[in-house]
């Protein structure tokens, strides 16, 4: 069965630190990849997505993610985090075999200390 793994359930960083959140998926075929974010008290919203082309994708608020097919990974990065990045981050994937339904990782709670 297809699955998505997010390695860290909780991450605590200080402001200006660099961020990398891991995401791995299990599927050998073509995938479409997403990062969603839920800020405190707000709805889940799309941060960025990859479906083809340049494997380095840029999203909102300075986030980027790199698709590495050989590693089945789609890690989220930000060079310098801010207190306002405190949120829960979800990685998700869809495939033709999933009928393009999203398969979700368990999420990573990120806390940024001011």
């Amino acid at each position: 069965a297809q699955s998505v793994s997010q390695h860290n359930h909780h991450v605590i960083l200080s402001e200006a630190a660099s961020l990398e959140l891991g995401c791995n998926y299990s599927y050998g075929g073509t995938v479409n990849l997403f990062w969603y974010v839920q800020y405190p008290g707000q709805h889940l919203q799309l941060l960025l997505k990859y479906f083809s082309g340049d494997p380095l994708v840029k999203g909102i608020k300075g986030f980027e993610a790199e698709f590495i097919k050989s590693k089945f990974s789609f890690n989220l990065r930000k060079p310098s985090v801010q207190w306002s990045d405190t949120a829960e981050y979800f990685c998700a994937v869809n495939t033709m075999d999933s009928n393009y339904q999203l398969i979700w990782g368990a999420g990573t709670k990120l806390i940024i200390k001011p």
Partner: protein
Amino acid sequence: NAGVTQTPKFRILKIGQSMTLQCTQDMNHNYMYWYRQDPGMGLKLIYYSVGAGITDKGEVPNGYNVSRSTTEDFPLRLELAAPSQTSVYFCASSNQQGAADEQYFGPGTRLTVT
């Protein structure tokens, strides 16, 4: 636009009671989804709809029912509530079920069954 709205925000049910979670979107999206999120887990798809009058089961449909009589509304019905249905429920919508289509989420309903 209000986007996707859900009511209620919180609810406590006794075992065996029934309730309906309401979901409405004002973006004229054809596709709508119901997810549940259990602590420490990713979102799981309960049911989805590709348009008014058409619904289909997701990964975890048991104990739930849906209907889609209009484009805007997609209520989720719990009949005979069980403790295993304690969860946070999210409704979402998208313009199409494309490979890379963004889903728009409601604020969630936190349900406790005791």
